[in-house]
């Protein structure tokens, strides 16, 4: 757009500035509040300005670091396994679908695509996983349901292979005696690195942020909880931290009010620190995944 309308420009700059602040300031509030003493919080509440500096919340969390580190470890484990399997399944499904000469390709495409149109919803899915496959209270219950494969990503990847890997290259390799597996690993995979990175990143975010599998499929084994479910428990169960601190021998009073903000900060900081590094892939994933790839 070509505009000399100064008022319009000012409004647009102001709008963006406001929204940028709206996206950043809440974290500042969490941060400041987590470093404020309980008495100051009781008086003036969560705030954007420091009133009475205190590290009590973090000292307390340091005392229960065992349980927090454990939750982090579980998150890392679940995400690592989930993303690896997800990427392997996606590649293995997308490559055959990209082969125009595969008999039955249309049927298989429809088999995949139909799952995007119609689904059984929560109750039957829950029943299948808990009553038929008995994934309740197991690590598999946090990894397998819902997240292991994404039909959108498969279609994105399939389109990428058909448009970016020339058929002729594959055929030439075949004439030289390459097997299908060699074609996939030596030709298609190296040429599809960018799309694989994007899909892996989207899967990583999905696994890292997931907490619904935790509340659906975990009832007693809370030791399997990742960091997101740990946060859910702290929020919904006032005694959760108390029961966790018993074991670690911390017996001073819990700074309940600031601790809530401190734990949110601890959960969010790694994500914010990593974000600049994957920001480009993330934007690409968004613009690719929105409409059919």
């Amino acid at each position, binding site marked *: 757009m070509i505009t000399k309308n100064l008022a319009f420009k000012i409004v647009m700059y102001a709008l963006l500035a406001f929204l940028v602040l709206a996206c950043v300031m809440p974290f500042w509030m969490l941060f400041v509040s987590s470093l404020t003493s309980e008495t100051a919080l009781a008086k003036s509440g969560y705030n954007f300005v420091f009133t009475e500096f205190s590290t009590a919340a973090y000292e307390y969390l340091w005392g229960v670091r065992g349980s927090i580190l454990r939750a982090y470890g579980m998150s890392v484990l679940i995400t690592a396994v989930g993303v690896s399997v997800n990427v392997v399944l996606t590649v293995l499904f997308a490559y055959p679908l990209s082969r125009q000469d595969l008999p039955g390709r249309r049927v298989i495409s429809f088999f995949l695509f139909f799952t995007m149109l119609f689904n059984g919803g929560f109750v039957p899915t829950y029943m299948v996983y808990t009553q038929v496959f008995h994934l309740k209270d197991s690590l598999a219950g946090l990894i397998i349901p819902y997240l292991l494969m994404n039909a959108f990503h498969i279609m994105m990847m399939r389109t990428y292979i058909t448009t970016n890997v020339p058929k002729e290259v594959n055929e030439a390799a075949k004439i030289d005696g390459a097997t*299908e597996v060699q074609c996939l690993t030596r030709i298609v995979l190296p040429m599809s690195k960018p799309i694989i990175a994007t899909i892996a990143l989207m899967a990583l975010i999905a696994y890292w942020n997931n907490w619904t599998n935790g509340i659906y499929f975990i009832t007693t084994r809370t030791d399997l909880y990742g960091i997101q479910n740990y946060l859910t428990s702290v929020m919904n169960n006032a005694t959760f931290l108390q029961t966790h601190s018993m074991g670690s021998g911390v017996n001073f009073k819990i700074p309940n009010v600031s601790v809530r903000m401190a734990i949110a900060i601890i959960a969010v900081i790694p994500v914010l620190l990593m974000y600049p590094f994957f920001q480009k892939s993330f934007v690409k994933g968004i613009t690719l995944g929105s409409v059919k790839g």
Partner: protein
Amino acid sequence: MVRNAASKAVAPTLTQRSRKSARMRQFIPLYLMLLPGVIYLIINNYLPMVGLLLAFKKVNYSLGFLASPWVGLSNFTFVTKTQDAALIFRNTILYNIAFIILGNLLAITVAIALETVTHKMFRKVSQIVILIPYLLSTIIISYIVLGFLSHSNGFINKSIIEPLGGKGITWYNQPKYWPYILTIVYLWMSFGYSSILYYSTLIGIDKSLYEAAVMDGAGTWKQILHVTLPCLKTTIITLVLLAVGRICYSDFGLFYQVPNRSGMLLSATQTIDTYVYRSLLELNDIGRSSAAGFLQSILGFICVFTANMVVSKIDNESALF
């Protein structure tokens, strides 16, 4: 002679057949590659579709699903006998309509703002920062909301209402505020995503269109009206229709965790998804839960299907099929 002719006639079909089976054999590795994915789709997607039939059964865990008796439509009586069905469908659909209209308006405005801003650094930073909320889990978002709305320590009560002489509002007990709160939270967490989508279409617009419009004497508003919006038309229609296709579904975290699971807010926060979850896992009412889920799946399918038919009429590229 005759024999020769016959063998000549048979021979090609034999080689054809063996060639065909050799051709098929060459695809076996590809089919094997598909196998794990197909198994997963059967477990994760197709078995639950069959499981929709549970809505017509009285489930008895000790008998198992197959032996549980059929009960016709009796699980669906909650639709006529209670207010539940009307409430959850109303909430789900009205929230979605508000989200679609406001979300797209905001996103288009932001996309235009991003394009108007000529300061490179500011534009870059804005693009990065507005995506942060989309990156967070709903749990983190619910902590942020708690920071603002907590009754005894929240920023709004302690720093805005009470200093002005008002009495702190018990946000988590009063449903009347939640349609606004949830809409704001939704816009906050999702506007970056759709803004970037619109912006990526905007930067693709041919600059000469604007130059021509300026030559014809078009000001800022005329350019938006006659160049920008028409160029965004397909993106707008596609995004709106895809959202309409999901009008029976809601973000579970937004409606369950952000209101802090408060039971007093149900009239404003209960959607089909939270209702199905609560009925099954908190009230153990599998009949009602599966019946509500059944309605959601069927209506959801009709919506997605219709929306996609319309999308494919308008813009074949963006349709799912």
